[in-house]
C-alpha cells in the first residue's frame, strides 16, 4: 500500500459523484436540446461518463466483472450506437431542428420536480445499500425519470429512441450504484437487447418515413382502431 492511496481513494470516491452529476446534467441538457446531431453527441458523452463512473467503482471495490461491463458499455454506447445513430440520421437526412410538445422551460421545471422526487425516494434505499456509490442512487433514478420525460415530450422518432437509450444508461448506472452491478448474464442480455432494439427501431423509422414522408410520430395516431 502506497502512502498516498487513502487520498487517492477519497478523490476517486468524489469523482464518482462528479461523473454521476455529469450524467444528470447531460440528461437535462438532452431535454433542452433541439438539434438531433447535438443530441447524439450528448448521448455519447453520457455514455462516456457512465463508463468512467463504472471504471472507478470497479477499481475501488476491486470487482473484475465491472471492468467487463464497463468495456461492454464503452463499445456499445460510446462507439457502436452513436455510429449507428449518425448513419441513421445521415440516411434519413434529419439533421434539422427538433420541436417539442411542451415548451422547454416547462419541461425543465417538471424535470426539477422529478429530480427532487427521485432524491426523496432514494434516500431510504441508499441507506440499505453497502455499495460505495450509494449516494448516487438518487441521481441514477433521476436520470431514468428525465429520460422517460424526454421520450414523452418529443414528437419525432429519433429523439425518442435516444431518450430510450439514455434511460437505459440511467438504469445501468442505478444498478452499478446500488448493488455494484447486475449479474453478468443480465448485463449481457440487456446490452444485446439495446443493440437489437436500435437496429429494429432504425428499420422501423425508415418504414415510418416511407409511409408518411415524415418522421413525426403524430402520424401514427391514425393507426388507431376506428
Amino acid at each position: 500500500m502506497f502512502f498516498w492511496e487513502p487520498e487517492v481513494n477519497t478523490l476517486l470516491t468524489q469523482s464518482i459523484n462528479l461523473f454521476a452529476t455529469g450524467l444528470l446534467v447531460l440528461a437535462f441538457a438532452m431535454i433542452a436540446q433541439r438539434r438531433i446531431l447535438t443530441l447524439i453527441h450528448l448521448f455519447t458523452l453520457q455514455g462516456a461518463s457512465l463508463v468512467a463512473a463504472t471504471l472507478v467503482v470497479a477499481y475501488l471495490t476491486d470487482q473484475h466483472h465491472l471492468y467487463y461491463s464497463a468495456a461492454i458499455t464503452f463499445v456499445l454506447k460510446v462507439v457502436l450506437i452513436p455510429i449507428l445513430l449518425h448513419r441513421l440520421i445521415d440516411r434519413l437526412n434529419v439533421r434539422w431542428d427538433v420541436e417539442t410538445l411542451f415548451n422547454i422551460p416547462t419541461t425543465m421545471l417538471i424535470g426539477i420536480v422529478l429530480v427532487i422526487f427521485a432524491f426523496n425516494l432514494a434516500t431510504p434505499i441508499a441507506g440499505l445499500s453497502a455499495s460505495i456509490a450509494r449516494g448516487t442512487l438518487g441521481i441514477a433514478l433521476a436520470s431514468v425519470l428525465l429520460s422517460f420525460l424526454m421520450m414523452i415530450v418529443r414528437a419525432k422518432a429519433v429523439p425518442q429512441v435516444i431518450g430510450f437509450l439514455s434511460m437505459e444508461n440511467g438504469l445501468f448506472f442505478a444498478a452499478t450504484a446500488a448493488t455494484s452491478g447486475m449479474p453478468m448474464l443480465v448485463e449481457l442480455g440487456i446490452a444485446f437487447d439495446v443493440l437489437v432494439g436500435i437496429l429494429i427501431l432504425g428499420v422501423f423509422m425508415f418504414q415510418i418515413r416511407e409511409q408518411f414522408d415524415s418522421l413525426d410520430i403524430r402520424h401514427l395516431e391514425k393507426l388507431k382502431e376506428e
Partner: protein
Amino acid sequence: MAHLDWILVLVGGWLGLGLLGILALRHTDFVARVLFPAGAAIALGLAAIALSALFDDPETAVLPLGLPNLPFHLRLDGLSAYFLLVIGAAGAGISVFAAGYFRQGEGTPPGLLCLEYHVFLASMALVVLADDAYAFMVMWETMALSSFFLVTANHRVPAIRQAGFLYLLVAHIGAIAILLCFGVLQANTGDYSFANMRAQSLSPLWASAAFLLATFGFGAKAGILPLHVWLPEAHPAAPSPVSALMSGVMLKTAIYGILRIGFDLLNAQLWWWGALLLALGLATALFGVVFSAVQTDMKRLLAYSSIENIGLLFVGIGLGVLFNAYGMHALSALALTAALYHVISHAFFKSLLFLGTGSVLHATGERSLGKLGGLMRRMPWVGWLVLIGVLASSGLPPLSGFVAEWLLLQSFLFTTELPNSFLNMLVPVVAAAIALVAALAGYAMVKFFGVIFLGQPREAKLAEAQDASLLERAGLIWLASGCVVLGLFPVPLIGAIDRVTQLLIGTGIASTVRNNGWLLLAPTTLERASYSPLIFLAVTCLAVLLAVLLVHRLYHGRVRFAPPWDCGYPAQTARMQDTAEGFGQPIRQIFEPFIRMRRELPSPFDEKPIYHVRIEDHLWHWLYLPIARTTERFARLVGRLQQGRIAIYLLYSFLTLLVLLLVVVAK
C-alpha cells in the same frame, strides 16, 4: 437400460421424425411413406415398453432441460405406464392410417403437419410422465398448442379458424385452473414436485379447492359439461387422423390428470367429490348422447359421442371416489377398473370411427349424412371395419365396449352398500340413466352406420367412391382388432389395470378375476355375475350358423334377391329412404327441452319445398354468449384508454412508474 430411458429415446425419435418432416417440407411421398410409418413403429415400441413397465417398479429420471435449477422430473409408475400404453397402442394405428391419409395440397404442407403431429404425440407421452408441476404444465401447453395447429391445418377456412380459437381459449382457461390447482397442492412449500405434493396433507377445505380446480381444468380438456363447446367444433374441423388422436387419446390425458390428482396427489377423498363427478359425468353423458343422436354431420356426431363417453368415464371415476371415501376399496377398484377399461376401449373404437369418417370424406368429399349412403358396397373394407367400431361403441358383446359398460353397471349394483341413505336413493337413478345412455348410444351408432353405409347412395357421385388405400386399411384393421381382442380377452387387461388400481387405492380386482378362471370374467363372485365373451361369441356364431342352415333347409330355393328397404314399391329412389334427420326425429321430439332448434318448415303450397333444421346448444346461448358480451363491453371501456398517441401511452407507463415509486416511498 431402464424402461424410462427407452421411452425417452422413443419420444426423442418422434421429435426427430418431426424435424425430418420440416427438412422435407413438401415431399409428400417421403413424409407419408417413411416418416409416418416410422412414427407408428415408435408408437408400437412405446406401447410394448409401457406394457412391460406396468408390471415393474416405478422409475424416476431428471431431464437436464428446463430453466436453470429447475429441471424436468419424470416418473414412470403404473398409472403413467397404462396411459402410455393407450397412447402408443392407439397412436400406432392412427399413424399408419395417417401415412395413407395425408395428401398433397391440403392447407398446411405435409412436413409441417408431420412436425406438429409428432410433437403432439411426444407431448402427450411426456404429460403422463411428468413428475413435477412445471414439466406437466409445459408439456400440457405444448400438447394444447400442437393440437391447435393440427386442428387449424386448413386455416384458410374461416369456420376452422374459429373452431381453433375456441379450442385454444377453452384449453387455456382449463390450463389456468390446473396451474392454480398445483399452486394449492404444494401447500405454500414452494416445491412443485409431485413427491412433495404427495407428502402434504391438506385441510378438507384446501383439498376440496384443489380437487374442484382440477375437475374444472381437466374437465375443460375432456369436454365435460358445460365446457364441452369446443369439442363438436374442433373435431370436425381437424383432419381425420387428428380428430382420432384428439378424441381417442388426448381426451384421456385429462382423465389421467383427474386420476393423478384425485387419487395420487391428494391423499384423502371426500364423498361429495365422487357425487359431484357422478353428477357431472351423468349430465355430460346424457347431453352428449342426445346431441349425438340428432346430428347430421358425421364428425360432429362422433364428437358428441366422445362427450358422452367422457361422461361415462367421469361416472366411473366418481363412483371410484365415492367408494374409496367410504373405505370400500375393493368396490372402488371395480369402478376404477371399469373406467380404465373404458379408457383403452374408447381409444380404440373412437379412433377407428373417426378414421373411418376420414376415409369416407376422402372418397366422397362429403361430411353431411344427408348426402351419403350405400357405401358398404363401394367401400367394403372401411364399412366392415367401421361396423366393428360401431358395435364396440354401442356397447354390444363380445366387443370391448361391452366389457367396460358391464363392469360399470356391476359396480353400480353395489352402491346399495354405501353407508349414506341419500346416495342410496340417488345412485339407482343414476344407474338407470346410464343404461338409458348406453341404449341411446346404440341408437346414435345405428344412425351413423346405417345412414352412411347402408341403403342406397343419396348422391350420384358416391358411385365413384374408392375404398381405403392399403396403409389406411392397415391402420383401421389394427384398431378394429384391438376392439375385438380387448372384448374377447378381458382378463389379461384387467390384470394390467390391476397394477394401476393397486397404485391408486391399494387393491385391485385381478386376483378375484383370476381365481374365477380366464374364461369367465367375474369381478366379485361367480354366483353374483359373470360374463364370458368367448362363450358368448361361440353361442352367437352357433345360433347364426344354425339359423342359416335351417333357412337353407326349410326355404331352399326360395331365396329372393331384392333391393333393400324396398317395402314392395316398384320404383324406389334414394330420396325415399329414411334420412339422418328423420332417424333422429323421435329423439328430437322426446328430448326437446334439451335442444334449441331453429326450423324452417315449408308451406304446403311451396313449389320447391325446403325443410331446414338447425340444432343448437342451449348452453351456448345461456352461458357463453352472455360472458362474451360482458367481456366485449369491458373491452370497449378499456379501449377508451387507447388514444393512438405514443406520448399518451408513454405517459401512462410514466405515471404508473411514479405511482409505484410513491407507494414504495410511503412504505
